[in-house]
């Protein structure tokens, strides 16, 4: 579990995050949503320690991350996995070597064990036969899967994903969403996903935080979005006429929205 208490972040005179208070729960896909420039990525970078907060606390299972020494922060980062918007795979390494990299750096496994573990992770993300390819030789969706495999290689407790569906087609995005959701439950990780993909929000959002101009504007689950009366949230989620009309029909006619597993979203 990750708790954020009174988090502020400023760059020179500009306040980017203002008094963020929230809890990201274990075994759930926690989503941070908001417009471009709202502060989502800055919040995530604060959470992983790439930025230092101006003020506030970040508690990882009760451990104050902000107050840790540089060395302790580095040690704690080994409990984290991160998937970047651009996948951030190492260009000079093959797919298999990319997944093996954290194992090579931090595990005491033998080469055979490391290779087997990397193969397991690649199998878990349904990526077979691409071991010897370089990142430049595979598609964007495959790169994201390799990034997920690399992120889970060391069984992290916390998984961070910065816009994992960016640049992917809707169908591949759903595959990536489902993969992240199932991995989160399987490993009982605290997963935090930055996104503005509405399919992700409605499909896997078990705890959603809406950031608006640096402030936490709303928090809830996907089933509460459709009926929310928060104008800023509905303006953001139902931005197109199609979605606005769909929402109006759902509310006016008392309809229910189901996902593909026949589970009720609204």
């Amino acid at each position, binding site marked *: 579990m990750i708790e954020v208490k009174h988090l502020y972040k400023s760059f020179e005179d500009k306040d980017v995050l203002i008094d963020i208070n929230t809890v990201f729960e274990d075994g759930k896909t926690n989503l941070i949503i908001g417009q471009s420039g709202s502060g989502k990525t800055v919040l995530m970078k604060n959470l992983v320690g790439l930025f230092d907060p101006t003020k506030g606390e970040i508690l990882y299972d009760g451990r104050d991350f902000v107050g840790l020494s540089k060395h302790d922060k580095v040690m704690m*980062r*080994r409990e984290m996995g991160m998937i970047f918007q651009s996948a951030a795979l190492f260009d000079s390494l093959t797919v298999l070597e990319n997944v093996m990299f954290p194992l090579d750096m*931090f595990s005491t496994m033998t080469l055979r064990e490391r290779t087997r573990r990397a193969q397991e992770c690649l199998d878990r993300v349904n990526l077979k036969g691409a071991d010897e390819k370089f990142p430049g030789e595979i598609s964007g969706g495959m790169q994201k899967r390799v990034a997920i495999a690399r992120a889970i290689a060391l069984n992290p407790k916390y998984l961070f994903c910065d816009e994992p569906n960016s640049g992917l087609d809707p169908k591949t995005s759903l595959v990536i969403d489902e993969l992240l959701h199932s991995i989160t439950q399987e490993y009982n990780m605290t997963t935090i996903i930055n996104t503005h993909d509405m399919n992700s929000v409605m499909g896997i959002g078990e705890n959603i935080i809406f950031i608006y101009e640096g402030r936490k504007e709303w928090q809830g689950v996907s089933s509460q979005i459709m009926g929310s009366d928060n104008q800023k949230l509905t303006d953001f989620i139902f931005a197109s006429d199609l979605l606005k009309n769909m929402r109006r029909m759902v509310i006016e006619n008392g309809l229910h929205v189901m996902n593909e597993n026949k589970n009720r979203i609204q």
Partner: protein
Amino acid sequence: MLIHKWLTTFGRYLMLMGRTFSRPERLRMFLKQYVKEMAQLGVNSIGIVLLISFFIGAVICIQMKLNIQSPWMPRWVSGYTTREIMLLEFSSSIMCLILAGKVGSNIASEIGTMRVTQQIDALEIMGVNSASYLILPKIAGMVTIMPFLVIFSSAMGIVGAYGTAYVGHVLAPDDLTLGLQHDFKSWFVWMSIIKSLFFAFIISSVPAYFGYTVEGGSVNVGKASTDAVVTSSAIILCSDVFLTQLLS
């Protein structure tokens, strides 16, 4: 203002070097990278070093013969001056200036691209000291391979000079041999190697700094690459003056 900017940059460079020269997290990974960098930065530069040195050796020999040799000079003077120029300045300093262009731009653009594509952030998130992992093997590899490049360069320059004697018949091979052997001081070889070690450090660390600290996109990577080559070339030239004075 300019001095303030230079001092700030220098301070940041020192801080980066402080992070770079820390104990590698995994010796196995460091050695793997070290060998790779020696091959990529050093061994892959042997061709250009030999090519340039051959022709410069030949040209120096011809110029000396045409412009210095006179009835008042001994006939071995062309060989002697060719050897001294190759050994004292060309193979150590000028060759390093050339390598600052080839290797420096390579290092700055490689690390800069890793920075803008978040590969360095990925290393940091994993808990890896990215400066040490990326930069230390490059510096160590370059410092290791540079003395060999200097020796190859000097030898190839002399081969080039012999080419003018045997193929071009610019001067008699015996006169050239006499000049090459005349008043040979082995310290000059060591001096050349010592200078090259300093330059190897500059060639690898300065572009690494420019690449590591790049912000923005591909345009900034290109600019960082250019800045890296210009700055490392200027530092090599300045330090050459001090090193030559110190070691002579």
